């Protein structure tokens, strides 16, 4: 049989590699750049692009009405992300540029810049080395729809657009307290953001155009314009209310900027649920399996299945079960490995819970090549767990399982004959919880980008959080 026609099994390392290195997004970016620039020599261009490796540098637009704190937020983001800030003022103030000199003259005369000139200034600035390698943050540009369209036509597309919004009255009030530091260009406020150092305080100036009338006029213009700019950036726009302390605004902005938008990359979720006994892992795993078609792999269940199948592993495991000691790691790994290697797990992805219980098991799992791409930690306080577990009861006659608080038995006679699983007594639960607490810190360290979940809520809320964690790409944290 010819090698090309034989059925092929794609080794699972390939999709894992693709996911881990974001190959799809990389190819997408490269192709976009190719289409935008259309170089005569595509291959050297692609090589240069790949070597630049600037797919994830910040490309942010910060828009908002006057006195919403755009400049403040933009400057703080700049410092935090170590990027470059572009605004009308510093574009005009650039030396060594004939465009900038011409723009200065125009600005002095008319106090505004024509759109074409502004866009050309922005383009020239964005072509410079530092913007290419470290990203850029545009503060208050584009001002009108025309400028937005011109920017888009040139291929300058931001990845995140933040629009600050606040009620007009608040803004008019706030603008009266605006003060500017002439040296650094930072914007301070008499009430909300007063600088602690006295030398800065002494040199603060009152900027022009902060009277109520002026502010009202500017607000009017802003509202006219923003309605037509916002639809140009449909999927990447986020409105942040600016009516809160600037630190909060900044935090929200930073979190948003660090999220990566979903792409069309094919993604097989391999989810690991960690959490103490009674945190709801099996339930969540079952829900996930039902909704997304993942394979629910519960370690304890697997072992019991192996025993029931009377396979050779099953016999060995049965001996351990009878003696009531923990099954050794190597046997568990073999059984687990066989299950995870099967075609349906590889194809559809899996949800694993109840397995690694300590660091050695985690290392073994890793070394065999089963690396989860989403790890969730269900945090449930001890009292909740106690409540959930110690009130579990089973009816010996019908086999129904009840919970004295969440699913009480319907009749008194059923309640009379309910029995409790000896594993659900308080001491056992405490024991298991201690065991888990001891090992949880190391496990969290090992699976470093762990997504914590509050498991103390009702199952569907927790499920929604889980879903959003799986579906959205992991945010890249700037150190």
């Amino acid at each position, binding site marked *: 049989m010819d*090698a090309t026609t034989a059925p092929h099994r794609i080794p699972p390392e390939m999709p894992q590699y693709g996911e881990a290195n974001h190959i799809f997004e990389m190819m997408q970016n490269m192709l*976009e750049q190719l*289409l935008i620039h259309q170089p005569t020599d595509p291959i050297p261009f692609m090589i240069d692009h790949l070597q630049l490796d600037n797919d994830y540098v910040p490309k942010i637009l910060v828009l908002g009405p006057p006195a919403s704190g755009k400049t403040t937020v933009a400057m703080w983001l700049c410092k935090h992300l170590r990027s470059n800030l572009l605004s009308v003022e510093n574009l005009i103030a650039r030396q060594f540029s004939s465009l900038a000199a011409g723009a200065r003259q125009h600005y002095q005369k008319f106090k505004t810049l024509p759109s074409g000139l502004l866009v050309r200034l922005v383009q020239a600035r964005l072509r410079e080395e530092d913007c290419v390698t470290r990203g850029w943050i545009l503060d208050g540009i584009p001002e009108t729809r025309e400028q937005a369209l011109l920017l888009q*036509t040139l291929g300058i597309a931001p990845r995140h657009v933040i629009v600050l919004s606040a009620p007009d009255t608040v803004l008019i009030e706030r603008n009266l307290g605006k003060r500017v530091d002439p040296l650094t260009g930072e914007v301070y406020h008499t009430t909300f953001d007063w600088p602690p150092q006295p030398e800065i305080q002494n040199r603060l100036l009152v900027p022009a155009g902060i009277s109520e009338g002026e502010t009202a006029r500017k607000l009017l213009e802003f509202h006219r314009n923003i309605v037509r700019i916002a639809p140009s950036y449909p999927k990447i726009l986020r409105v942040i209310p600016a009516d809160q302390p600037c630190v909060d605004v900044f935090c929200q902005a930073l979190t948003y900027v660090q999220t990566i938008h979903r792409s069309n990359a094919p993604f097989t979720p391999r989810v690991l649920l960690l959490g103490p006994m009674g945190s709801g892992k099996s339930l969540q795993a079952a829900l996930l399996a039902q909704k997304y078609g993942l394979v629910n792999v519960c370690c304890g269940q697997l072992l019991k299945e192996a025993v029931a199948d009377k396979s050779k592993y099953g016999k060995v495991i049965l001996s351990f079960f009878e003696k009531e000691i923990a099954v050794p790691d190597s046997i568990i790994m073999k059984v687990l490995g066989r299950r995870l290697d099967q075609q349906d797990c590889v194809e559809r992805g899996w949800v694993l819970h109840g397995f690694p219980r300590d660091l050695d098991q985690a290392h073994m799992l890793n070394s065999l090549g089963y690396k989860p791409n989403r790890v969730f930690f269900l945090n449930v306080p001890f009292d909740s767990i106690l409540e959930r577990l110690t009130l579990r009861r089973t009816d010996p006659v019908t086999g129904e399982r009840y919970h004295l608080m969440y699913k009480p038995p319907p009749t008194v006679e059923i309640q009379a004959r309910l029995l409790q699983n000896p594993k659900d007594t308080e001491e056992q639960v405490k024991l298991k919880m201690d065991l888990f607490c001891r090992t949880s810190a190391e496990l969290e360290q090992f699976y470093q980008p762990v997504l914590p979940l509050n498991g103390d809520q009702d199952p569907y809320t927790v499920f929604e959080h889980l879903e959003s964690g799986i579906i959205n790409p992991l945010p890249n944290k700037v150190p």
Partner: protein
Amino acid sequence: VASALTDRASPAMATYTYTSRPRALPCQRRRYRDNLMQPAEEPVRYGNIMYDRRVIRGNTYALQAEPPPGQPDPAEIQRRQQAKRRALAKRRAQEQLRPRTPEPVEGRKHVDVQTELYLEEIADRIIEVDMECQTDAFLDRPPTPLFIPAKTGKDVATQILEGELFDFDLEVKPMLEVLVGKTIEQSLLEVMEEEELASLQASQYAFEELRNVELAEVQRLEEQERRHREEKERRKQQQWQVVHKHHETAEKIAARAFAQRYLADLLPSVFDSLRDGGYFYDPVERDIEIGFLPWLMNEVDKTMEYSIVGRTVLDMLIREVVEKRLSLYEPKEDRQSPPKPEDGLGGPGGVRDSLVDYAFQDHGASPAQRPLPDRDSPPRAPHDGRSVEGVSSQEGRPMEEEDEQTRKFLGREELFQ
């Protein structure tokens, strides 16, 4: 002895006797330094009385004289004794080295024999003879005569005649037989040996041949084995390469299939993202937005202006007419002579005033009425300015502008009509 005598004299007549069983005496000589072990643990050394220096062996009558006390210590004596012994030993060694005749064989004895020319009788008593001689003073010493010792003893001779002792022929036979026989036997043996040697040689040769053949066979087999082995190795290598290539090809194909599947959605998503980013836009839509709509709005603006101006003019006309009628009516009550309404100069002049009035009011109302785009507001501002100017100084103002305005309005009104 004294004690024995006294013992004999004792009443019990008890003679002191001491007997003991014969026992080997231990040697009291300490060989090593004082050791801490118990003497009982050490093996007891027994001394041999024969080699005990304290026991005097041999003649005791002639006691060994002690060396005179003036002499130095026994060490010196020992040294001298040792020296003597050494000299003796050396002499003996030298005697041994001297060549001697070998020892006599069993049953024989060496006897000294004289071998000079003239035998000498050896007797107990040695004959001595005194002789004197005197040499002459001037005679030469004659040559020494040969020394021929006197003959002593009696000469005796014997003679064996033929046939007396033995018969040669008879006696010789056995000897001859033996000799010849032995010789022949010897030669037979030699010949047999030679033959044997030859046959051995032959068999060796044959064996050699066989061995060579076998060796050749073995070499051939080895060669064959080696060739087989190499062939096998080569084939294994080839097979391994084939399998390897197969694996690689399979991997490459898997990689290609995977890449195709993985990036199947690439182009659509690229185009989607570029479209969302605004890079791909519908040129017709864009053209409409940038080129057509502003112009359209402008035109709509103008049209609406016309209609509003027309209405304003109509309003003013109606007002004018009504005022005139009013003014006519009032004087009619007074004078009953209604002056003719002047459509000529007065008309435009009167119309001008009220036109200016109404124009100002209208212009004041228009920004609220018409939702015009921004572009029209700057051109409107100088407009406002002009009409405001007109209102602020109704007399002696640049009438030309107003005249132009009025003419334009009237012109448009005509167009409109």
